[in-house]
């Protein structure tokens, strides 16, 4: 299915958020996720089903003021 990942269109086979994060190449990287502008804790990724057109944000620590 086609979803948006960090603002870019991506085609994925995974059905759950947990599998999508893995499929997209984040592996064991420590990231925080949100689907359709709502936070999804790491512990809930396995039970979070993705749907066509979902907007996924994958964030990580960066410099800040």
């Amino acid at each position, binding site marked *: 299915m086609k979803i948006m990942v960090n603002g870019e269109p991506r085609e994925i086979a995974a059905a759950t958020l947990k599998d999508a994060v893995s499929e997209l190449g*984040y592996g064991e990287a420590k990231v925080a996720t949100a689907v359709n502008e709502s936070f999804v804790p790491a512990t809930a990724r396995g039970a979070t089903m993705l749907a066509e057109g979902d907007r996924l944000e994958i964030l990580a620590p960066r410099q*800040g003021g």
Partner: protein
Amino acid sequence: MPDFYGTHVPSRLMLGTAQYPSPAILAEAFRRSGAGIATVSLRRETAGGKAGNAFRELVGALGVHVLPNTAGCHSAREAVTTAQMAREMFGTDWIKLEVIGHADTLQPDPFGLVEAARILAADGFKVFPYTTEDGILAERLLEAGCEVLMPWGAPIGTGLGLNNVYGLRTLRAQFPDVPMVIDAGLGLPSHAAHAMELGFDAVLLNTAVAKAGDPAMMAEGFARAIEAGHLGLEADPMPPRDMAAPSTPMFGMGLLS
């Protein structure tokens, strides 16, 4: 030294981690400043997660408290979601809450700020709101559950110093027991000294250090100014007066004219 939500912090300087010429210079600036808190953010990660991991290691090695921000958020909802993600990512319930009202001035949106602060405080966050010197807004933020206030000195990144000294002095007097941090707009160590002389508990800055020609030296300059300003406050300064008053005694002066 300041106490934020029951946590003693061994420095009155809070330092941002953005815009430094290199990670090594960032680390050196922290070392020479003695800053006790580092502000950080969350941004989009690329596959592999290398950038996030490297930055996490860099900040971890600083040995300071981490204060994640919601920089760039323009709505309460966006800020709340960012805060939730930051809590998981950094393992802290501290959050520097920014809800920006205008992209050019980076002025806080007071309505969104209070709304987000209420939601986050109810969810167990310890909120550090980036706010203005407005006393009514301060009252609303305290009612919402904030136990720290961070009024701006001037808009973020301007380096103008304390733009509204009267307003800041009034805010300090209105809430004498609330820990307050001057956040944003400082450009020179003297600005930080002034904030200390007004009785603020700490200052938070980033650009003034990171964009200096020698960031580490500037960081130390701020640290010394903060100490000087705080000593000045504690020493109970003389009251100012309009008319001159000679410091050398007139008694005993020779008649020489």
